[in-house]
């Protein structure tokens, strides 16, 4: 059985159990910004923190859980994080049906708050960035179902806690949750929702798989986990909405029909404060949790949130591109490109194949710039990628610009009123050899003999601790 507690125990050396009071307003997020700047990615556990009533929270906060690619890959059972794309493409399609367990056996229903007790203000919800209107749930997985087919859907969607029992809920207009909500609202009915918070990172990533509509995420989560996900009927909605039995906290209730509220501004994955928009609201009926519940927060726009989402994207982009470019060997969606950049690594692509790969990848909604390189370029090294672009590209020959493709409305550079984006593919591969077996008609890369490299590495080890300049 996998859950957040077990993961934290297994990765104890990577956890910083902060032995000091931390303000839920901005301070944990500030710590994440500092750590990102320093390139350090411990898991942060804050026990000395207050809830929204200002009382000491009996529920600690975990954040930065997935800021490290290495640690997140380890959670998935991938020995090397650079192998995520192929791994994810295979495992998220290997669906494993969930296991339904009884209420009494579900840790997430050990404690039940109902009526006035079911107050969001009892939770240590963080306010992350300046300019936001208040505390947001950032790791709440909204689970709804399609009233026509009964098939459920789950996705991370932010919620602004407006009062003890009401919060906004922002399902992006194109999401499956929004389709489900609209179906209920078109019938004049409230939309049933359950938000689950906190789980093993493999479950968090598994539920981010991009699926058709309607299709449950529980199978994909099981595929990524490598075992059936344990689910339990929610207390308010019964078997119509199952929730992960080993989650930390579940918030159940309804989105009343036609009721919208202002929502935001909110710090987005782009690194900018997303503008205020309108969102449905959600009224709480009950809150359930484990006896030893931990509240999970994602640092929005930080590596904490970019790493898991980008790793899941790598699997999807690999699947899309591999279908048209068999020479594809790997994909990297780098956090410095937010979710807008992807790097494709190809092994001896045939003529036209790099451009086929680029155009296929550009069809992925969030991607805006895609760069294809050869196998000798490390797609996990920004320096290596820029070297390839600097030395293997003639812009008029090797760049492709396509306007009018689907894009992200959160892209700060998209023109006002546009519903599509302008995208670019860059072919930074070398030309293929003029005939099979012949050398490529380009200058060779400058190298030194392998033995000399080994000698240099040995010499450097003898230097010990130094104060040499880093820049």
């Amino acid at each position, binding site marked *: 059985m996998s859950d957040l507690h077990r993961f934290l125990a297994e990765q104890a050396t990577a956890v910083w159990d902060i032995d000091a009071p931390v303000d839920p307003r901005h301070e944990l997020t500030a710590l994440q910004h500092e750590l990102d700047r320093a390139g350090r990615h411990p898991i942060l556990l804050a026990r000395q923190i207050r809830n929204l009533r200002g009382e000491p929270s009996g529920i600690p906060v975990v954040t930065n859980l997935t800021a490290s690619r290495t640690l997140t890959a380890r959670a998935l059972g991938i020995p090397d994080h650079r192998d995520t794309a192929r791994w994810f493409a295979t495992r998220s399609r290997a669906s494993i049906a969930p296991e339904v367990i009884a209420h009494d056996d579900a840790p997430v229903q050990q404690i039940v708050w109902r009526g006035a007790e079911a107050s969001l203000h009892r939770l240590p919800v963080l306010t992350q960035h300046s300019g*936001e*209107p208040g505390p947001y749930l950032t790791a709440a997985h909204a689970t709804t179902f399609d009233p026509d087919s009964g098939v459920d859907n789950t996705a991370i969607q932010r919620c602004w806690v407006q009062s003890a029992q009401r919060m906004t809920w922002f399902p992006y207009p194109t999401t499956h949750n929004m389709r489900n909500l609209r179906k209920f609202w078109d019938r004049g009915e409230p939309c049933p929702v359950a938000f689950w918070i906190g789980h093993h990172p493999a479950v968090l990533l598994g539920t981010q798989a991009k699926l058709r509509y309607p299709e449950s995420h529980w199978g994909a989560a099981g595929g990524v986990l490598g075992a059936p996900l344990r689910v339990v009927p929610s207390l308010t909605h019964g078997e119509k909405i199952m929730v992960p039995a080993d989650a930390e906290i579940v918030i159940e209730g309804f989105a009343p029909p036609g009721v919208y509220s202002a929502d935001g501004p909110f710090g987005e994955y782009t690194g900018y*404060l*997303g*503008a*205020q928009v309108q969102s449905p609201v959600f009224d709480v009926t009950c809150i359930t949790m484990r006896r030893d519940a931990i509240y999970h927060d994602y640092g929005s726009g930080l590596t904490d949130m970019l790493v898991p989402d980008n790793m899941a994207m790598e699997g999807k982009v690999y699947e899309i591109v591999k279908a048209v470019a068999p020479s594809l060997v790997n994909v990297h969606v780098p956090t410095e490109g937010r979710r807008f950049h992807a790097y494709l690594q190809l092994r001896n692509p045939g003529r036209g194949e790099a451009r086929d790969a680029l155009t296929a990848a550009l069809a992925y909604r969030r991607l805006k710039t895609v760069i294809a390189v050869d196998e000798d370029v490390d797609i996990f090294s920004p320096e290596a990628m820029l070297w390839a672009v600097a030395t293997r590209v003639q812009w008029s020959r090797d760049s492709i610009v396509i306007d009018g493709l689907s894009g992200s409305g959160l892209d700060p550079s998209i*023109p*006002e009123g546009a519903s599509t984006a302008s995208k670019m593919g860059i072919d930074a591969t070398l030309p293929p050899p003029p005939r099979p077996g012949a050398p490529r008609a380009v200058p060779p890369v400058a190298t030194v003999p392998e033995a000399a490299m080994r000698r240099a590495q040995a010499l450097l080890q003898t230097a010990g601790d130094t104060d040499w300049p880093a820049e």
Partner: protein
Amino acid sequence: MRIVKDNVGASWEKRGNTAWLECPACRNWFPVGPVMLRAEAPAAHCPQCHHEFNTAAREPRSGGE
């Protein structure tokens, strides 16, 4: 209440895509999406003082305050 939008000019000129509202109660400026300027939008909510106010009846001024 004042609104700023950057929506006038030639198509080849680079311009922003976000409108800003000034809260009539505390004078704080904050960004809003186009949906918040429509007639059917819910009341805007100042993230600083939590004053709620209607924006729909107001025409934005372009290129400045």
